């Protein structure tokens, strides 16, 4: 009965936290709508949203800021949940699509496209996530194969080290390709790699939306499997979970979320690491509660990063990825020092 009581308390606390974060995200959204080179007051925002604003106001809000912020929210959720899955299946709190090299693989595929078809200059928005997915899947496959040892399976540490090495190799190839671009394409690629939400129009929102709408609920349905996988391989196997198949399915989900996010947002790091970590601290390791908070925290972080990046130096936007790595990097180092083993 005590356990029941406890879990009930925990559940209501988690639900409250999810609601709280949803409200926070909403507030952040409104604040972000107000900020930018062309400032619009909160009241005017409301007016414009209701269709009463001036022409310039509605142009800035509907065509520039709103799609960009919607993308920020989706990317944040995608990257953070991707990180949560990777951490769950590798049983290592330091996993993240960036550190494992999956983001570099997605980026390289996009870079290849830009350098092979310079005439089109930018890949059409619907093609980008698919290109990125091919790159990310290939990379994930290579890392998995290289980290796999017969009779030992995948050790979490070997997976991370292999990811770091493969990531370094891929970025060497990226550098060769980058140097052969003409200055205009180079400008695009370099800013994209830094994680600027460059595709800020409704087309990109539409291109990204199906990935999130399909993959996020799918992963949420697997919350129980993730609970088991992240505990102990033997317990999971004895409870009748088909380990290999579930792990592969979840890995595919993680790769898809990361790839589509990277295709639109570029190399935004640390979200996959910070989102799940903060969520776990708040509600514990149960994925049913942890995953929604992870998604919300990720969204908040990217939204905040982008808003800050837009407002420190309005003339030259600092990409969200840089803002986030300046905040996330030190936090990661702090985690590294604090935790044992």
């Amino acid at each position: 009965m005590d356990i029941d009581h406890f879990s009930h308390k925990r559940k209501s606390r988690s639900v409250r936290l999810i609601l709280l974060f949803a409200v926070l995200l909403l507030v952040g959204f409104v604040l972000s709508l107000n900020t930018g080179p062309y400032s619009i007051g909160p009241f005017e925002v409301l007016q414009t949203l209701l269709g009463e604003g001036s022409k310039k106001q509605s142009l800035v809000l509907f065509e520039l800021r709103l799609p960009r912020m919607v993308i920020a929210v989706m990317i944040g959720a995608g990257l953070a949940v991707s990180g949560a899955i990777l951490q769950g299946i590798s049983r290592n709190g330091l996993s993240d699509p960036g550190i494992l090299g999956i983001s570099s693989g997605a980026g390289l595929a996009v870079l290849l496209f830009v350098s092979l078809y310079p005439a089109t200059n930018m890949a059409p928005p619907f093609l980008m996530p698919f290109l990125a997915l091919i790159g990310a899947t290939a990379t994930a496959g290579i890392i998995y194969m290289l980290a796999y040892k017969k009779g030992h399976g995948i050790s979490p540490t070997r997976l991370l080290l292999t990811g770091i090495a493969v990531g370094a190799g891929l970025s060497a190839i990226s550098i060769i390709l980058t140097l052969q671009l003409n200055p205009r394409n180079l400008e695009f690629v370099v800013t994209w790699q830094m994680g600027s939400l460059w595709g800020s129009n409704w087309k990109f929102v539409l291109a990204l939306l199906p990935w999130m709408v399909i993959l996020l609920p799918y992963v949420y349905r697997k919350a129980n499997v993730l609970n088991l996988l992240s505990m102990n391989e033997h317990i999971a196997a004895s409870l009748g979970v088909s380990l290999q198949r579930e792990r592969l399915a979840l890995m595919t989900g993680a790769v898809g979320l990361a790839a589509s996010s990277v295709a639109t947002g570029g190399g935004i790091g640390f979200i996959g690491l910070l989102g799940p970590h903060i969520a776990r601290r708040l509600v514990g390791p149960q994925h049913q509660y942890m995953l929604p908070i992870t998604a919300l925290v990720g969204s908040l972080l990217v939204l905040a990063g982008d808003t800050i990046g837009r407002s420190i130096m309005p003339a030259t936007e600092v990409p969200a990825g840089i803002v986030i790595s300046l905040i996330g990097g030190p936090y990661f180092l702090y985690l590294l020092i604090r935790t044992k083993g």
Partner: protein
Amino acid sequence: MSLSQPITKNTSLRTRPWMATVLIVAGICGILFGLGSSIITGVANISFSTVWNSIFHYDSSNEHHVIIQSLRMPRALAGALVGAAFAVAGAIMQGVTRNPIADTGLMGINAGAGFVLVLVFAFAPRLPFESIVLFSFIGAGLGVGLVYGLAYFSKNGLTPLRLALAGAVVSSILSGISQAISLLFQINYDLAFWSAGGISTAEWFQVSVMMPWIVGGIIVAMILSRSITILSLGEEIAAGLGQKTRLVKGLAAVVVMVLAGASVSTVGGVGFVGLVVPHIVRFLVGVDYRWIIPCSAVMGGVLVVFADIGAKMIAMPYETPLGAIIAVIGVPFFLYLARKERREW
């Protein structure tokens, strides 16, 4: 060292001085051969006799003689120096931190030097190279300080895995700031070329500025080598043998800072030399740093001189980034190290 030689079972003190001597002699021959090959290869086809004449019968009206004297010789020599510096820096770090995957590139020290160089490009683009080198030391020192600081403050020290993670993150923070600055000051293009790494711009003047630093750094490293061997056995053992471990570690950090800073200011972000070379050397000559350091210096020089010939040849007449060539060699090696380890890191 736990990676290549388990310290148990008395294998830890194995050394092969004769092998080291062979390696040094062969390495010096390799460097000389490499310098010669590097001087005759390039876009303009130059025969060996022209090289000979350019040295002993220099004719300033002969275009080939000018190319050899003012471009190819300093480039080849810079390659050898930088290779030696990176390799020795890596060897020192591996010995002092007792960590088999320590390397100036992987640990964020190159990124630190690069970060300060970007600041220089942005705020003081006309600074003379002598001062740029000094700023590069400061940046490398920043990287060394961060890694040492993390290892110092973390519980139970940093395992190789955690050190690799810390290095990756320190690099990404520093290069993030560098990129932001380069965006604001519109030096993207310069930064991209810089981080690719390459020796093609090295001139006599730069060689003359960095040479004393690198040669001096390697000499101090050799003086420290005995203490580093003892330190590599474990800090308690070293302290028990009456060594001033703090002093040795501090001096070693300064040497790493000077070697990495001088090299990075000349060739940009080249990693993995310091990882690969000391491992191969340690495998061949054993665990005594009195041999590892000079052998690493020679072999590092050989590696970079030949990699630079590759940079010239692979896509003639274009330069292939040196950093990428070394990464192509270094990454499989890193993967091999990650697989070879039996224990969990």
